[in-house]
């Protein structure tokens, strides 16, 4: 991790926090801080990626602005995380996309949707594109299965490789070492339950100094909604490949049910998280990361909503257009996966595993 402005600011603040320690009950960051006296840039990157942004420490801070010490850990760590995403990105030059991430995510999303739509319209006969299709293989008459699965698979695989390399870069920078099964499992539970978004058991300061569970619950809705959609696609692949059952499936079939519930979860989660960002006290928020966060939440919202609308109107002549819109957003999502806010999950998970390793040693 290079020495950025946010790294220097985080170091200054951690040295104050380490002499105070009032916040040790909120989350894993502060007990991890107390294991250290000096903070290398790698240490700070680790602590920043361990931070879930619950803001409890800001609202409890006797040194928060306008105090001369100006301690604002959530905002500083948020800016530092953004710098760390840039540092660990693969291939290296792609790191710069994190600097104007809102614009990049928005632009790529629009381009992907427009290009998929225009390409399909140019390629397909209007009668096919605007026609109502029913029965097995209806979707594939607009876009053939092989093309759909090929592009999605390739972009998704690339995203996984790029993110894995990023995590390896993070891991080396923050101390390396081999994670044994126990800390791996505990870290996985931490991230799946968002244990650190419980603010020591009382909730987070999502809006102001009140404690609520809103961010945690909305994130669960988005995350598990996404997981259900992923499960839906996986089940559909099994149906298609091994059972010879071609989409579209009936409403009460497993893939459609998983996708519907997941899509609703994602829509609720993304809408709620956007709403939280708009109404929350702006003081502990880093303005520089907001663009990228709004853009990615917007894209996730579009992925979910276009999927649900496609489900509702798949028997009509609008199916062709809705399908390309949905697939365009999904393609954009896969392409942007390693170059957007989405990487936070990978680094957060790795930081939580490291945290569990450290605790065992301490």
């Amino acid at each position, binding site marked *: 991790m290079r020495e950025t402005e946010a790294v220097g600011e985080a170091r200054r603040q951690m*040295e104050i926090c380490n002499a105070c320690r009032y916040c040790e*009950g909120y989350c894993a960051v502060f007990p991890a801080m107390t294991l250290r006296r000096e903070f290398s840039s790698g240490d700070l990157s680790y602590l920043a990626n361990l931070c879930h942004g619950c803001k409890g420490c800001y*609202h*409890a801070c*006797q040194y928060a602005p306008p105090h001369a010490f100006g301690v604002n850990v959530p905002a500083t760590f948020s800016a530092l995380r953004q710098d760390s995403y840039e540092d660990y990105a693969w291939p290296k030059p792609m790191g710069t996309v994190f600097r104007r991430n809102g614009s990049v995510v928005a632009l790529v999303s629009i381009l992907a949707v427009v290009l998929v739509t225009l390409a399909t319209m140019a390629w397909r006969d209007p009668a096919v594109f605007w026609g109502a299709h029913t029965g097995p293989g209806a979707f594939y008459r607009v876009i053939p299965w092989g093309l759909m699965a090929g592009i999605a698979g390739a972009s998704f695989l690339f995203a996984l490789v790029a993110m894995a390399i990023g995590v390896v870069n993070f891991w080396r920078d923050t101390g390396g070492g081999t994670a044994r099964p126990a800390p791996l499992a505990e870290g996985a539970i931490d991230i799946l339950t968002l244990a650190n978004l419980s603010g020591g058991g009382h909730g987070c300061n999502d809006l102001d100094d009140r404690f609520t569970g809103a961010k945690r619950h909305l994130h669960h809705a988005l995350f598990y909604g996404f997981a259900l959609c992923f499960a839906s696609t996986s089940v559909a692949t099994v149906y298609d490949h091994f059972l010879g059952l071609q989409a579209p499936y009936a409403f009460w079939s497993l893939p459609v049910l998983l996708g519907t519930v997941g899509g609703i979860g994602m829509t609720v989660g993304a809408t709620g998280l956007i709403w939280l960002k708009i109404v929350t006290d702006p003081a502990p928020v880093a303005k520089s990361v907001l663009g990228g966060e709004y853009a990615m939440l917007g894209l996730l919202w579009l992925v979910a909503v276009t999927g649900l609308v496609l489900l509702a109107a798949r028997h009509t002549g609008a199916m062709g257009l809705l399908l390309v819109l949905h697939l365009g957003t999904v393609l954009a999502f896969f392409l942007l996966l390693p170059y957007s806010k989405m990487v936070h999950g990978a680094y957060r998970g790795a930081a939580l595993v490291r945290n569990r390793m450290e605790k065992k040693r301490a």
Partner: protein
Amino acid sequence: MKAMIATDRVYDVLVVGGGNAALSAAITARQAGASVLLLEHAPKHLRGGNSRHTRNLRALHPGPTHVLTDAYLEEEYWDDLLRVTGGHTDEAMARMCIRASEHAPGFLASCGVTFQPSLSGTLSLSRTNAFFLGGGKALVNAMYRTAERLGIEVFYDTEVRSLLLEEGFVRGADITCRGWPLTINAKAVVVSAGGFQANVEWLRETWGDAVDNFQIRGTPYAMGNVLKDLLARGAAPVGDPSQFHAVANDARAPKSDGGLAMRLDCVPFSIVVDRECRRFYDEGEDVWPKRYAIWGRLIAQQPGQIAYAVTDSKAARDFMPSVFPAIRADTVEGLAVAMGLDPTALAARVAEYNAAVRPGTFKGMALDDCRTEGLEPPKTHWARLIDTPPFVGYPMRPGITFTYLGLKVDHQARVQMADGRPSANLFASGEIMAGNILGRGYLAGFGMTIGTVFGRLAGEGAAKYARN
């Protein structure tokens, strides 16, 4: 929040101040059915007085609770208080406060305050003290939220200039609300406006120009104006007007509001010299939790009100880290120069100390057998050779926590008049009356206990008077 205070109505209870004691009184009075107006001198972001810098409160408990381990009973609590005050206390009132402290955490929890088990860096207080999750500012936030939910009118940036107190009866106050002078009416008044430690001119009366070298650890709003006004209007004083509680603060700390993190814990593992490089007190007299509170006074008594802790790299991890980095140098002489001391004198002092150090087994957390022999003053524990570069130093100044002078009160928190009678409708809670029980010394977390216990008594008494 309302735009302005109503001057044409009579509030049941006026609460002066905005820390834990004031909020405890206001919430209790409101829950008893009174209309309550709370006036906080500080702006909103600095609200809460010294409560903002606190972390825990000391509570009696007959058995383990979810935040307190083991048991802490009246006799032990009283013994602890007796020891730190050296008898400068009121036993009946202290025991009443100690017994009531059992219910203080529950009351605060009902006001939205959350507690946590203590983890680290807390001077091992998990048996006796309940810790606020996030510390005092989180407590203050929760209590203001509760106060506003209950319909208590809260005004910030509002200073009470004087109380309309005649013959022991108060009928309102002259105030300045965001710059506007107003007179307000109330049936009963609770004053919880803190000590006068931030009032440099008042301290100067006793301490002369030494006050310019003092630091105020907590709120800069503890000006003592309400205290001074009430004493002038016939309220009876309590506590030594010349004394204050002070700790060894980092000399580089801000003049006020530096809070807890400015204190330095390096003393037991260092030698401490004045600006002439002379030692003046046994740095290793007892474990730090029992000695940290005397070092502010000790430094205040040295020339220039400054002292310097000197140690070496061996000790660097034996105490809590500091906000400002240690001053380091490869030689003792170099350290002296970096701290503005005479290099020859400091080197001679360290050499003299090293020659007196006897071999022993170092134990950072317990009274060990590492001591000096033939040195005056001696260092009786944790005396190790200062010989491993880099050498480490910290400049220290007195950091004042609170003053002892206050208003004399009775067991119902009613303010006593100089003629010996209690006021009918003027009550006090918090630092402004803590001197009744805590005449000297300090017991960690006891200030918040006094504030909560007497805040509740004052709120209850004020509401009862106003509603009759």
